[in-house]
């Protein structure tokens, strides 16, 4: 049986995590097809075709798919589903929105955020904010699986799969895209950055986050935050790292003024090296930090920034 990977994209480029999803699909086995549904998504389809391991790209052109409304894209995926044993997508916001809708329409369960493929029907997934790992076996004919990108090494480039035009299924007319308020940033994207600098309530204001921006820019790092910092309005919602935010696993994660609640750890404890800067030596973040430094962040961060040579 073949595996269908659903690719999120912005028309021009597919999201970086599509290569991770393809890697997971390759582990499942069988031909890997990638669905690129969109409106004027030719460039994205070409990019998908270049991911190693992809046998075929299905490009579905329809105005209804321009903004990834789940109601419309789900209907298309469901139409294609009978040809596949698995439907796989990265567990980002688009995948989380779309795939359960697909699963329910197929009357099958969804395996959420798989971190390991044990066999084609058996997967490991974190539960309770990553404080337990469940091994689950699907008894359904079609397996709908979202995968955590950070747990699958991205498939390489250099492929040259054929692109097949399959046409669209139109709009269900249930929902309309109005617009987006996207945070613009020159910094590396949080979930794929090699280094992440994250701030918490200890920063005490949005203004003080500028200090972290300077450090992040020097390191070429992405910028993250705890829920408390987002709730307090210091930074936008898409900065949130954790159980109910983004999951990151960079080479270096620097937690600044973050206590280390389990909900936060859930999103960063797979990082290769963790640094914690906190004035409370009892803060739980020190239990996962490779290097901890106890002290006032307002003194330490500028010192650290000065000590690091610009990349």
């Amino acid at each position, binding site marked *: 049986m073949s595996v269908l990977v659903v690719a999120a994209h912005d028309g021009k480029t597919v999201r970086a995590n599509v290569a991770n999803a393809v890697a997971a699909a390759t582990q499942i086995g069988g031909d890997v097809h990638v669905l690129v549904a969109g409106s004027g998504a030719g460039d994205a389809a070409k990019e998908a075709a270049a991911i190693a391991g992809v046998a075929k790209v299905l490009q579905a052109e329809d105005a209804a798919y321009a903004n990834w409304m*789940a109601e419309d894209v789900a209907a298309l995926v469901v139409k294609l589903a009978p040809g596949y044993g698995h439907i796989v997508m990265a567990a980002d916001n688009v995948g989380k929105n779309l795939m359960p809708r697909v699963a329910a329409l197929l009357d099958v369960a969804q395996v959420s955020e798989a971190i390991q493929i044990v066999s084609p029907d058996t997967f490991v997934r974190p539960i309770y904010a990553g404080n337990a790992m469940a091994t689950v076996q699907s008894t359904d004919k079609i397996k709908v699986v979202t995968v955590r990108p950070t747990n699958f090494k991205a498939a390489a480039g250099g492929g040259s799969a054929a692109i097949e035009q399959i046409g669209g299924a139109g709009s269900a007319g249930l929902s309309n895209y109005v617009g987006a308020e996207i945070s613009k940033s020159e910094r590396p994207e949080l979930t794929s950055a090699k280094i992440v600098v994250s701030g918490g309530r200890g920063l005490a204001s949005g203004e003080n986050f500028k200090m972290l921006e300077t450090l992040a820019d020097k390191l070429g790092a992405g910028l993250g935050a705890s829920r408390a910092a987002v709730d307090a309005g210091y930074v936008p919602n898409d900065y949130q790292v954790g159980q109910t935010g983004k999951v990151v696993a960079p080479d270096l994660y620097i937690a600044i003024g973050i206590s280390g609640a389990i909900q936060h750890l859930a999103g960063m404890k797979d990082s290769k090296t963790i640094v914690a800067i906190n004035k409370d030596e009892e803060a739980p973040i020190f239990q996962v930090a490779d290097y901890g430094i106890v002290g006032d962040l307002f003194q330490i961060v500028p010192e650290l920034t000065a000590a690091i040579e610009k990349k």
Partner: protein
Amino acid sequence: MKVLVAVKRVIDYNVKIRVKADKTGVETANVKMSMNPFDEIAVEEAIRMKEKGKATEVIAFSAGPAQCQETIRTALAMGADRGVHVLSDAELQPLAVAKLMKAVVDKEQPGLVIVGKQAIDDDSNQTGQMLAALLGWSQGTFANKLEIGEGVAVKREVDGGLENVMLKLPAVITTDLRLNEPRYASLPNIMKAKKKPIEQLTSEALGVDVAPRLKTLKVEEPPTRKAGIKVKTVAELVEKLKNEAGVI
């Protein structure tokens, strides 16, 4: 317009969970249970709609063992009008819960359903999207702001920031953390809630097959990180990051 909200009984978010020695699941005996935090946000949103005259009645739904009635009581104490409890001691997976909710929606005909984006026990993030699919309704997931008019305008929390969508009613909404700040129930309202009705149903009576589709083979502890060291100075930190960890 009636609003149906889902409230799941879960292990309290402050509890450090323990995996059972026989690897069948996590320890739930003598553990503090609470309403799933995202569901408190769902209840709050529904009550605010009623206070603004946008909703006529708020019905709180929960599926699971007898103690779910306590979770429904909490919703009633916050201000929901009545409860629907589907009694079940079986493991209920998101698809089964969505089917149970669909059966209740068919009976009650609400104009809006609000559920949490994610249950903090199974971390599935599925039920709302599945319910919308089964009903053939629109879905507004990860809602940061709602405005009810002709349809419902939803501001959604997405990977890059926020996204605005307009949904036809009826719709299913799933709550994100910034939608509102849930209230605490006042003592008089807790007393009043005791008299509010909770209807009890079963999956059999609703004609829903709730058999799990995913078999849990085992539940294990995650690998733990080795505790690291504390450094005294920034210079020492930079040296370690360069020469020991090799990350900068």
